[in-house]
């Protein structure tokens, strides 16, 4: 089984909460530019990309990656795949 984060861009509101909290937890900085995820706002649907540096918050030793935990729109969902 492998864990990955599924993206549903149609649910994304482009609020960048994922970027903001990813960076805050993983780097200790208020700086979304340091995040391992990137949201690009376009109409009608934003684009969401993970950077290669994303380790699913393994180094933080948390159950749910920070971006998934803070996304209140279910645009990011944890998925188990074999």
């Amino acid at each position, binding site marked *: 089984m492998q864990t990955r984060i599924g993206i549903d861009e149609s649910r994304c509101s482009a609020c*960048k*909460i994922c970027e*903001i909290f990813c960076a805050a937890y993983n780097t200790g900085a*208020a*700086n979304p530019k340091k995040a391992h995820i990137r949201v690009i706002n376009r109409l009608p649907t934003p684009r969401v990309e993970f950077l290669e540096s994303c380790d699913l918050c393994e180094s933080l030793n948390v159950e749910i990656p920070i971006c998934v935990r803070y996304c209140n729109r279910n645009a990011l969902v944890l998925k188990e795949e074999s």
Partner: protein
Amino acid sequence: MRLGGYTGKNLLIDVSKKSFKAIDWTQRKNDWLKLVGGRGFGAKIIWENTDKNTDPLGPDGIITLNTGPLTGLPIPGAGRISLCAISPQTGIWADSSVGGYAGAEIKQCGYDSVIIKGRSRDPIYIHVHDDNVDFEDAKHLWGKGSFETETIIKDELNNNAEVLTIGPAGENLVLFACITTGYGRQAGRTGMGAILGAKNVKAIAINGTRDVPVADLNKVIEITDEATQYMMKNNPELYNVFTRHGTTMSLDWAQETACLPTRNFQENVFEQSENINAETMEKKIKVGDRGCYCCPLACGKVTKTSINGEQVYVEGPEYETLALLGSNLGLGDLEAIAAANYLCDYYGIDTISTGVVIGFAIECAQRGLITLDGLKAEWGNTQTILNLIEKIAQRKGVGGILAQGVKKAAEIIGNESQAIAMHVKGLEQSGYETRSTPGMSLAYGTSDLGAHHSRSTIVGWETRTDRFGITREKVETQILLQHQRSLFDALGTCRFQWCEAKLPFEFYPRYYTAATGLNTGQDELLLGAERIFNLTRMINVRRGITRKDDYPPPRTLHEPLPSGPYKGRKMEKEDYDKLLDMYYELRGWDKNGIPTKEKLEALELKTKQPN
């Protein structure tokens, strides 16, 4: 804790000389901190750098973009900036608060405020990136709509910037041209777009990579976790309805309480309101949600409509647009309202002022005072409305007169047109009709911008409590609201978490302390907001504003409501004067509306103009 929240520097850009410099304000730290940030910093900059004669469209005119101490931090809605200037439309103090994503970028470049002065010889866009500012050629962007301009610049900069841009209307100096960012967030009011247009600045692109300064990041996150839980758990219904519908949910409320501007504010109940309310919008045209920087509420609603058979998307209409481009024009067709919204955004004009201006034009034409270049002077006529938007943006035909706003248009048209021009201080009235709500009449009359709702939407409180009362309590509530709401603009965060999702106000002083490390309490922050309100009043006094300018439009005072549950009511002048007298007294202003020397001293405002 170290001092956070603020960067301690402002950026001054001179587009005449294509030069820039950083200004450290920490040498006069106490003077600046007294005004909190955001709109407060903007007021200080405008007070010190303009005078009674400054022409906002001349090279000496300035426009400032002001973040607050919370802007850019992991706080719900903390992406806001206040654009401040002298308005080309009203000639007095102007500010327009906008969300989107550009605020954090300014902070990440290392600045609290950005000040732009001068006039470029050729069209340019300004690219601010960390310590550098580039002045890029914008000839290829001149004439282009807001959305296209934003995309082209983002593509040129590899998506590494947020963009604030004007559309063709700003280039054409339409006096209520707006500045757009994030494909649908507008600094809509008071003509900010015309100021950039006059400077030959098509857009400002900003890309900062630094950390946003913060005293205690963990504490900020802890408060945000608590605040988010509070909003979701304490008022789940409100939270869910607001995230689902945004401000469009107010349409039914305005209809039920009889406040919905209808046919140029002649009436306050719209017989087709169900065709343009939140539920219909969700069913018919909504395709998605938009949230500004770090906002879980996502009040922006993306909709689909068509222009000349071509499918287009737009963020909106929100409540104000539904009211002013919908009911106020007798238009009960949501797709047409969304199309009008799209055209306003494309050309870069404020949907509120545009709706009032077109309502005024249709009524003037019906009374035989003007003609509409062959367009039918009918309420709810989509073709007339969409054509007038284009004429205004391009200043063509009758649009040349209308592009100046209803006050100046009425001065040109003359006769009885001034009696039906819905404005205060030259700014068109936003989405509440107020003949049966004296507190809201006072809110429009005493707003420092002119007839704008954001200073105090007391209409909600008033219709729940003592609708027709002419009471001291009402005036005290009004002043408190004017300070509370000003504080959000000063902090650089959105007020909707508080006034819509009911997050207690007490969260904000906690945020301020966690962000800055300063133990400034709620009372002191509200005192800062009072200072800002008095400083912007002094800017207006310097520009000639007195008591005579603090009245609602003639229609509100002299023309009884012809229909609806409050038929026959108007805002009695005598009652209004009572409210205004109480307001001045409670504010420490004299009978003529001028802040007294004692008041200014008590607020420690240095309002003597520096050399």
